[in-house]
């Protein structure tokens, strides 16, 4: 253990106990160390009391039993790439990092399953099984750095979840440590485990039902053919209508992404991929599978694009060109640094047929608040990601950013959409939950939480606007919309 000057006096005993069950070097208490864990990738800051790095399930159980004994809240943390404050510790909570639990434990290439530890990075899993012709389908933009445990906590998505579904569809079982330190396997390799789908309930619970220590994932066969195309339009409306038309025609592409003009300009200046910077919007469409289906769908999608006014349809001619097009999509967030130093990424979902209507409203909101907005998003799912870019050194800009963000959320829900498609609720949208759910609805969600965590110490005060266990005010940091 390093210097414990940052630890509150009340925590000395707890830290001592933690050092009895973990090697002291894996119990961090020094201010400089634990300060790194005060937030995730969101703008919301909290305060960690101590940060633990267990390497075995037993160690996680031991740490949680100590937390339970001291009635001390704990927060699970993977890579900290979450964008909604879900892994932000409040009130000096114990942070339990799963970063060192990152092994691939076993693979069954015939039945296409694998057991992994939660700290394994998403892209590492796909790399590890690539030689078997398999991959893990959920591919969040942060897949190089996010963990599978984090994907489970947030039920993460990604561009290629349009056809294959989000994380919940790809998780067969989770070994979970509950808030009293007990161990349970939710779900199983068998398709119909006994009783309720507790596995499904756990996925997306944002660390509030316990901590997963082993995960059984479903792997997907790699495709033998793929076509990636970029089509551009002179209006956002034409692009949005093309999205709906493709789906209505009975096709579900592997990915169906949209970038608007400001985004295209930023990305092109960054990667020089020959993107159509004079277009109002461009669609990146990927079709994968077997060769005849891929060729046929590529042709049909091209026809639909042309019928909706696509100016050009660029089909990647080789893997290098395909990779370049995807690089444009996946580096959009890096590219915006050329415009302004800061950004706030939003995440809502709207019905596909409302895409244009809501996007136009997003532009109006940004204009009203004198902010720049770029849109790069999973159009096939109706999953919007308005990116407000700004310089936080400008006086008053954060207030405008938060006000605009709130309006975007409200507009999306009013259009028949939902609060979040893949980032989760965390702290960021906790107090917007009543926009979607009434008291009885929230009570049902609270009931799930109580059933899993009657002690109320697993990542409390997130997701639910009126925590069932306590109504205390907490030191929720700058960035939260309250």
């Amino acid at each position, binding site marked *: 253990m390093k210097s414990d000057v940052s630890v509150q006096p009340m925590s000395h005993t707890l830290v001592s106990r933690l050092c009895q069950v973990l090697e002291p070097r894996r119990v961090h208490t020094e201010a400089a160390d634990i300060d790194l864990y005060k937030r995730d990738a969101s703008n919301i800051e909290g305060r960690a009391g101590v940060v633990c790095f267990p390497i075995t399930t037993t160690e996680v159980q031991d740490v949680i039993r100590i937390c339970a004994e001291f009635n001390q809240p704990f927060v699970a943390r993977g890579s900290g790439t979450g964008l909604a404050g879900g892994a932000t510790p409040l009130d000096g909570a114990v942070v339990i990092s799963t970063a060192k639990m990152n092994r691939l434990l076993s693979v069954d290439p*015939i*039945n*296409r*399953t694998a057991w992994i530890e939660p700290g394994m990075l998403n892209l590492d899993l796909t790399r590890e099984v690539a030689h078997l012709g398999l991959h893990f389908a959920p591919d969040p933009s942060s897949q190089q750095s996010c963990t599978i445990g984090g994907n489970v906590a947030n*039920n993460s*998505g990604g561009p290629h979840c349009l056809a294959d*579904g*989000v994380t*919940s*569809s790809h998780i067969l079982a989770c070994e979970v440590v*509950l808030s009293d330190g*007990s*161990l*349970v396997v939710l779900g*199983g*390799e*068998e*398709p*119909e*485990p*006994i*009783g*309720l*789908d*507790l*596995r*499904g*309930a756990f*996925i997306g619970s944002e660390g509030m039902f316990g901590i997963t220590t082993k995960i059984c994932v479903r792997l997907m066969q790699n495709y033998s053919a793929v076509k990636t195309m970029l089509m551009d339009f002179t209006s956002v409306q034409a692009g949005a209508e093309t999205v*709906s038309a493709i*789906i*209505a025609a*009975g096709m*579900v592409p592997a990915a169906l992404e949209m970038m608007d003009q400001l985004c295209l300009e930023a990305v092109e200046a960054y990667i020089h991929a020959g993107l159509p910077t004079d277009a109002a919007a461009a669609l990146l469409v990927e079709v994968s*599978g*077997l*060769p*005849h*289906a891929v060729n046929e769908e590529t042709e049909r999608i091209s026809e639909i694009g042309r019928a909706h006014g696509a100016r050009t349809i660029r089909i990647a001619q080789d893997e290098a060109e395909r990779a370049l097009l995807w690089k444009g999509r996946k580096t959009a967030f890096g590219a915006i640094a050329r415009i302004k130093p800061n950004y706030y990424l939003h995440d809502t*979902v709207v*019905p596909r*047929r409302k895409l244009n209507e809501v996007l136009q409203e997003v532009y109006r909101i940004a204009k009203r608040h004198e902010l720049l907005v770029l849109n790069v998003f999973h159009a096939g*799912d109706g999953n919007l990601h308005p990116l407000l870019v700004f310089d936080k050194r400008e006086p008053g800009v954060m207030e405008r950013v938060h006000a605009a963000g709130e309006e975007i959320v409200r507009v999306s829900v009013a259009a*028949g*959409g*939902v609060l*979040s*498609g*893949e980032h989760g*609720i965390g702290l960021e949208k906790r107090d917007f*939950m009543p926009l*979607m759910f*009434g008291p*009885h*609805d929230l009570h*049902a*969600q609270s*009931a799930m939480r109580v*059933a899993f965590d009657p002690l109320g110490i697993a990542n409390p005060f997130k*997701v639910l606007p009126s925590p069932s266990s306590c109504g205390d005010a907490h030191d929720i940091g700058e960035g939260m919309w309250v």
Partner: protein
Amino acid sequence: MGLDLSPFAEVVGPASSGPVWIAGQQSRLAAPSSIRRVTAPSGIYDLQPDEMTVVCGAGTSIDELQDSLRAVGQYVNLPRGDSGSGSVGGALAIGRSDIYRLGRGAIRDTLLQARLINHDGQVVSAGGPTVKNVSGFDVCRLLVGSFGQLGFLGEVILRTRPIPQSSRWFMMSEAGPEIIEAILRRIYRPASVLWDGHKVWFCIEGNSRDCDETIQKLSIDLEVPTEIAGPPKLDNYPFRQSVPPAELAEMVHDHAQQGPEPLVVEAGVGIVHRQTPAEPQATERTIELLHQRMLQQFNPTGRLNPGVSLTTGSMA
């Protein structure tokens, strides 16, 4: 969603109004005669092909729903009942997928949003109307397979899928475990692979020319598969067992050694279709505790579908 569920909530009644049983078409589970029965609303309220969603009452017949979806080139991943169409709510409450699970996925992923009546006769909304949603805890996953014990489904939004261009069944008559392994490895995302230890039946969905080429490649070093009209009838296998798919080959082998009772297994999935019931599995203590807590929260008086066992799906 706009269906007025208050009449349904009224007949379910408050917590004080005693035991109540939701009856669909009873194609999967018969309603006990001693308990007051209610029926969920039926009808299709909103079908949006370009959203790949459909809104319907939980009492809607699955056949009626599939007919309406077929007209727009889509289907919903809900199995028919054991004896007839069955209702949407019944399929979700039982939560068992059909023989196409390998390719089409599990039934639990079909439910996007539910409006249900809770134990106290209140309307509760769970999930969201869009195909992608992580807004709050996933109550919908818990409802699928809950045998109506956490609430009675009133109205649901379901995810639909395009009907595959072709769906073709094939059969090979001499299929050992190595053939099953070859099929699972070499066919791109087969929709279903059924095996009785001797014969294998498998389904390939998608582009018909791709299907032809797949069969040609398979035939290079294996028995040439025979195309057949559809899957084998499993009427004589009324019981099912769920095991890890990796254990199937050994299980089929052992079973063939021990007795004459045939099995048909879903390779790559782990469902075993049996003529006699399997030995019941023991429930792990913590799982049992979580079930108790969940029922205490959602159905504290035990009035919703009383007596049905969550673990066996039969009346206690």
